[in-house]
């Protein structure tokens, strides 16, 4: 069924669906293959999950769900998850806004902005426990800060506040990266004008700047809310037992109580809010943000939204937060190079020796899997983005939604779904690398869909029509015209898939096996076995590798751009 009553849509797609498919074999082939893959690796696992939750011995029942949800323990976990996500969303957005505002609207020196950009990037590209390790050492009963510096006795690092702290530090960069271009895109002339009309700076901020930012702020809030809701690793280490959250509970249910069904049910409770937030963010809020940004405001003069003293204050705050992050990572680096952090601070490179010998298998496995996932994930994102944005075929909208599902859902859910789907015949992939690669491709490759669609929207359709008019088939046009123009989107997608492949844990922890193991899982094991040296060393290794690969990808992207190619 087409929803092509919008004349713009009609004119854009060049009319009618079915007739064109028969005449365009490349299109038909691509769509069919994609549906087959999406069906196998996205829909089938989710159906298996739902079947496991709702069907006992062939009968439909909500017993499982009710039983688990009426357990006080799980209900607490449910509300905790929501509450934590809400806090992270709010505080993280505020923090991200603080940073974005300072970077765009005050005259802080550009070197400072570069430094902030660099440090803020760290949490995004490192494994999820990195801040947690540093936190335990800094804020525990014998913590570096709480005990040695502040002399507080019996402080506990476990619970809501440290989890919140760690998650905010980990996720606020997302808000920062989302809000910065938005603030940049708002024409500062608007604010200047308000100023010239006699409004004080605070009033300008309140009545002009802030309202324009509201869609962006809402967008960030939802992004962070979803991220926190799905976070498995940080609460596992920092939340303690006083503050259980759903992803961790699901994991413990499966791994501790060998109850896959129970774990599936718990994760199902997570599914509903996650999907809700995802669709809200994607189909309502972010659309309005996009509209705000398209007014290109590049190249405008720096504008002082605030007076100098306030600017200094903001700058100082940002520096403080940046320094905190830096400190935690420095602690990590330090911990990787001393014998036993906190007890024996003798310098040693033994931990690195350990990770490259005993951990060599994990390193090799992780890199191999990442190397395979990267191009496949990039291709997936670009292909789906291109087809859903530019071509018309039956079920286009359904494909758009289905392709994003694994990304929308928390990793725990997807991991459990894969476990349930592929653990037994007819399709048995458990224990292979393929299942992990598939997870990465269809989960993280989906980020490329958005980027591709955005890039494509900047390419006028007349360019593709020009190619068509010159006699080129769909695939020729795609190869020679579209692909080079969306190369930037492809490369950024490569980056994302690689970073996520190196740092993912919440889904893949269910999928490692005797044959294939991942660095992040080893880090978790090391942390729980309290071999913090190797854990830190592994983490440093990941950060370095990710930086290096990203550098290579960026260099390749620059070389790829010919003079005069699309921005």
């Amino acid at each position: 069924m087409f929803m092509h009553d919008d004349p713009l849509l009609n004119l854009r797609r060049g009319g009618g669906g079915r007739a064109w498919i028969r005449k365009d074999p490349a299109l038909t082939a691509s769509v069919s293959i994609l549906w087959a893959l999406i069906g196998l690796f996205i829909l089938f696992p989710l159906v298996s999950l739902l079947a496991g939750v709702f069907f006992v011995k062939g009968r439909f029942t909500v017993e499982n769900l009710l039983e688990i949800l009426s357990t006080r323990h799980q209900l607490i976990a449910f509300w905790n998850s929501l509450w934590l996500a809400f806090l992270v969303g709010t505080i993280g957005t505020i923090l991200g806004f603080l940073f974005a505002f300072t970077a765009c609207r005050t005259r802080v020196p550009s070197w400072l902005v570069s430094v902030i950009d660099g440090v803020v990037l760290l949490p995004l590209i490192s494994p999820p426990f990195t801040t947690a390790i540093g936190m335990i050492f800094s804020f525990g009963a014998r913590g570096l800060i709480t005990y040695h510096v502040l002399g507080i006795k019996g402080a506990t690092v476990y619970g809501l506040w440290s989890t919140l702290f760690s998650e905010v530090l980990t996720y606020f960069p997302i808000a920062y990266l989302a809000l910065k271009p938005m603030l940049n895109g708002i024409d500062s002339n608007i604010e200047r004008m308000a100023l010239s009309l006699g409004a004080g700076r605070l009033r300008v901020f309140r009545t002009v700047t802030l309202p324009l930012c509201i869609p962006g702020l809402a967008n960030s809030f939802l992004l962070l809310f979803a991220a926190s809701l799905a976070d498995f690793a940080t609460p596992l280490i920092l939340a303690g037992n006083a503050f259980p959250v759903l992803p961790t509970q699901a994991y413990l249910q499966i791994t501790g109580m060998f109850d896959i069904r129970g774990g599936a049910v718990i994760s199902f409770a997570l599914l509903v809010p996650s999907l809700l937030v995802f669709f809200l963010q994607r189909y309502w809020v972010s659309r309005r943000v996009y509209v705000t940004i398209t007014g290109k405001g590049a190249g405008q003069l720096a504008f002082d939204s605030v007076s100098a003293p306030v600017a200094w204050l903001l700058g100082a705050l940002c520096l403080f937060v940046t320094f905190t992050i830096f400190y935690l990572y420095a602690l990590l680096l330090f911990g990787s190079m001393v014998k036993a952090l906190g007890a024996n601070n003798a310098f040693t490179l033994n931990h690195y020796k350990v990770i490259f010998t005993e951990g060599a298998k994990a390193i090799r496995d992780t890199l191999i899997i990442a190397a395979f996932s990267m191009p496949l994930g990039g291709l997936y994102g670009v292909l789906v983005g291109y087809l859903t944005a530019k071509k018309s075929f039956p079920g286009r909208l359904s494909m758009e939604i289905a392709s994003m599902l694994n990304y929308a859902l928390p990793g725990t859910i997807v991991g459990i779904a894969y476990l349930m789907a592929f653990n037994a015949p007819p399709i048995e992939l458990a224990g292979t690398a393929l299942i992990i690669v598939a997870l990465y491709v269809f989960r993280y490759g989906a980020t490329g869909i958005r980027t591709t669609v955005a890039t494509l929207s900047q390419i006028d359709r007349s360019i593709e029509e020009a190619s068509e008019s010159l006699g080129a088939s769909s695939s020729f046009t795609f190869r020679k015209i579209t692909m080079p123009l969306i190369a930037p989107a492809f490369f950024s997608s490569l980056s994302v898939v690689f970073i996520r492949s190196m740092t993912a844990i919440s889904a893949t922890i269910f999928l490692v096996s005797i044959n294939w193991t991942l660095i992040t899982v080893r880090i978790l094991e090391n942390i729980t076995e309290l071999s913090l040296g190797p854990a830190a060393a592994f983490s440093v290794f990941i950060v370095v590798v990710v930086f290096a690969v990203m550098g290579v990808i960026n260099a390749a992207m620059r070389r790829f751009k010919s003079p005069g190619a699309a921005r």
Partner: protein
Amino acid sequence: MTAVEVRVEKISKRYSHAVKGDVFAARDVSLKVEPGEFLTLLGPSGCGKTTTLRMIAGFEKPDSGSIHIGSEDVTFLSANKRNIGFVFQNYALFPHLSVFENIAYGLEVRGRTKAEIRREVGEVIELVGLTGFDRQFPAQMSGGEQQRVALARAIVIRPQVLLLDEPLSNLDAKLRIQMREEIFQLQRRLSITTIYVTHDQEEAMAVSDRICIMNQGELIQEGSAEDLYYRPRNPFVAQFIGRVNMVEAQVLSMSRERLSVEVFGTRLSINRGALNPTIGGHVTLVLRPESVDIERSEGSGSSATGRVVSKTFLGEKIEYILECSDQRLKVMSIDRGWGSGPGKGEVVALTFFEDTIAALEDPKP
């Protein structure tokens, strides 16, 4: 390659608008382009000319009707199989390819050898006057240069039909005039059947063999520039092409070919055309500004007079606005030198060039 004809038979395209309901972008449009002819679709924006062009190109599928290029029915053929050349309003050059590569693109698609491509692209580059620009990229070139590349790209593949969608509207006035001349010359040289879309009537008249005027999705009238100018078949056409005075006149008598009417106190005999008015009834005269000659009234024998309300010196001509019998009349007069012609406030006598006046049915009040 011999030129082919293009035959469009009653094509329509409809879409649903949220506010307006069902709207026809094009309704029952039929036209025929002779081989090698330069046909222009002319009309205001939203009239359906671009939609029609795009349907001929294959970018849109008509809801009904048929399109033939040469002897082939291409109605359901996709654009890339129609062997057309299309020039876009925004040029649509491939930003990541050089001028040479842009032009070579269509030949590449057709699987020509490198040597052939080099030769043919070289020829066309010279043809459009872009020698030396081979390695430039579109972003480094001016609008006019880009348009030439777009043109070159479309013609190098020797299309059966050349389609141009308002190719000059993004250029400044002087460049537009220069470019339209070049396009005209090029088309003459290559003898490709060409369909051109524009909203600029002067442009249309300058380059076309025939013009089709469209409005609100329908083809209103087609013919040569002169046909449309001097023999408009309805007020829309009359007012769209050139400047015009629409004047009411009373029918005194009529013969098989001519009409005798009274206007401004004088009697005129004009071409009757296809009209069938009642004696004593009214018709509307299409009076071009240059169809009236004025001179100082003393000593003239004309009974039609008017007073000069304004006089504007425009270089090679003078524009007068006269008041005659309570109507305003725009009159164009050739300048004969400084200070020539009647001045403001003067009473002048009007002489009419009857062969240049057309009559239209009086619109019902």
